[in-house]
């Protein structure tokens, strides 16, 4: 297995080292690599003095372990990770799936040395946000519930910032919007910056609204809920399977299932199913290759009017008007 020892930071002095480690070179903030080793893009965007974004969109052709060994300790990394095909994160000998269907959001203090391991053939789409601790402290102090504890959160003797979480459905769609943008030129920078602000805001909301911290949920229960989400996404073209079926599959009572699903996903199983249906329907519409009737049929809506009505309720405009005014 190839081993890459590297570091991150808000300042860009780590970029050349990472490029060298993976056998590539830096060109205009892009890390380019020969296609035989990896395919795709790595792009670094400094947003301001306290914020830098790093976008990774690659398919791996070999097994690699990235060993993060920071020398700076003045920042926190927020990692929104949509990898598929076997990516794991190892911290203090504990291995966790760091994929779309695992802990797809990690928040780590620069002081922590974690390993990120990917398999040949897997794909990674990740947005990493490096933010100065001083700036993060500023953001979090806007949250009323945090004002009392903010000093201790950022006191290295009392606390290390580390959190394994699931990104919200909204964050997932934000990232999806960004993936549609061609990865070059000044417009790309604008959309990345917009996405990064949106993701930080969304995470702040998540902290405010989550009644419990995910780490306090039994790993087995979390795994079952995540599997349940994956099941719903894989069966978007069918009718909603019903709470009874889903709860049985997740080995929980219906009450516990509904409660946990809501806590982990932020929305009920039914809304999760419908909002993803509509999201995919919207994407199909944008391709221009399908009629509303065909799409309604594909995703099991009662008829076109039913899809039109739900679409309008969610997005504020009916689908055809959405298309005609794109």
């Amino acid at each position: 297995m190839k081993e890459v020892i590297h570091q991150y930071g808000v300042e860009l002095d780590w970029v050349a080292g990472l490029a060298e480690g993976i056998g590539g070179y830096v060109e205009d903030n892009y890390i380019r690599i020969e296609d035989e080793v990896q395919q795709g893009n790595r792009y670094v965007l400094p947003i301001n003095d306290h914020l830098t974004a790093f976008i990774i969109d690659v398919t791996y052709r070999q097994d690699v372990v990235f060993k993060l060994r920071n020398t700076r300790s003045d920042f926190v990394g927020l990692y929104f990770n949509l990898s598929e095909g076997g990516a794991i994160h190892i911290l203090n000998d504990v291995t966790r799936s760091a994929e779309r269907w695992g802990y797809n959001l990690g928040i780590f203090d620069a002081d922590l040395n974690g390993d990120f391991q990917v398999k040949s053939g897997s794909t990674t789409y990740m947005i990493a946000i490096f933010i100065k601790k001083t700036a993060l402290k500023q953001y979090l102090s806007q949250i009323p519930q945090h004002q009392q504890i903010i000093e201790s959160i950022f006191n290295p003797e009392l606390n290390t910032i580390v959190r394994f979480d699931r990104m919200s459905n909204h964050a997932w769609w934000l990232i999806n919007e960004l993936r549609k943008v061609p990865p070059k030129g000044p417009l790309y920078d604008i959309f990345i910056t917009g996405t990064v602000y949106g993701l930080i805001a969304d995470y702040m909301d998540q902290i405010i609204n989550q009644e419990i911290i995910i780490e306090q949920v039994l790993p087995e229960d979390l795994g079952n809920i995540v599997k349940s989400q994956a099941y719903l996404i894989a069966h978007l073209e069918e009718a909603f399977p019903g709470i009874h079926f889903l709860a049985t599959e997740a080995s929980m009572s219906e009450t516990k299932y509904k409660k946990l699903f809501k806590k982990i996903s932020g929305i009920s199983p039914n809304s999760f199913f419908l909002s993803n249906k509509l999201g995919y329907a919207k994407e199909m519409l944008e391709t221009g290759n399908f009629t509303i009737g065909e799409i309604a049929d594909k995703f099991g809506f009662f008829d076109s009017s039913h899809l039109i009505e739900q679409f309008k309720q969610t997005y504020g405009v009916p689908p055809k008007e959405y298309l005609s005014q794109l």
Partner: protein
Amino acid sequence: MNLERIEFCYHYTLGPEWQQQIVDAIGATLTDNKILTMPENIAHGGSIFLEVTPGLSVLLLDMTFKVPVAITRIPTDHQYYMVYFDIGDEITTHIIGNAVHRAGYHAKLGMGFMDCNTKGIIMPPVEQRSYSLRLFIQKDYLKELAASTRDLETNNLLFDESKNTLFFYSHIDSRSKILLSQLKEIDFNAASFDLKLKSTALYLLGYLVERASRFEPIINKLSDHDIEQIFKTSEYLLANLLEEFPGLQKMAEMAEMSVSKYKGLFKKILKDSPNQFFLNEKLLLAQQLLHSGNFSSVQEIAYELGYTSPNYFAKVYKNMFDVLPGEVLKNQPQ
């Protein structure tokens, strides 16, 4: 109630300085150099102003005026463009008694793009909430962004102020509308609000540049008089959606221009030919009427909109919305 109109003048700046004028003119309160709160005797609500990136600032206004005011934005030679997004129903229907009154429809365009060297007067309605967002974009910055979407020569020509005026009005595009309606749900005071406003402003700018790159470049200078004349005719169309299209000849006469000049300027400003513009608006109104619950048959709506053949109406409607008006009507809750 004091019905005398309060008048004041101001101009924007890319930085937060402009807000002081509002404080001085009408006694608004400025907090953290970004939130303006209106004095309660004039309006309820306020605005929030943020610098997003070098070259881009955003202003969000949410206020309900209690007395009539006339706000004049003075032209300046500052180097920025403004984009207006008015969020709200784009077609308002006033129903008097039980009858849908013929003169009661009014459509408006929710989005405008202009140079800060043009003058603007706003007389906001009293006792009605207005929610709008403005982007201020530095000229050089926009030129650089636009240059990534088209050939350099056309881009230089478009941004050459001695040859061309950048100016247009239209409906808000779908993607922007979704972002704005999401933003409208969020309280100004939420902890994450500033970040969401910045995120929205950046996406709106990105969408604007992408959309403008698909506009046919029409290079010419516009005088304030040209703009006024074109708006006179587009306003006429928007206020008479129930009639038949009056014909290009008559529209050009109304604008006191030749037909060819009229067609060119109309398309430059409103991004559609007068005929297509009128048809789109008519069908958007048709959609509104179908959902209003005030009509029991497609025939009634077709006649209301000035179509002599309900079948023809159904055909053009289906063409635009991909669904027959009869189906829409059938699915309305009674």
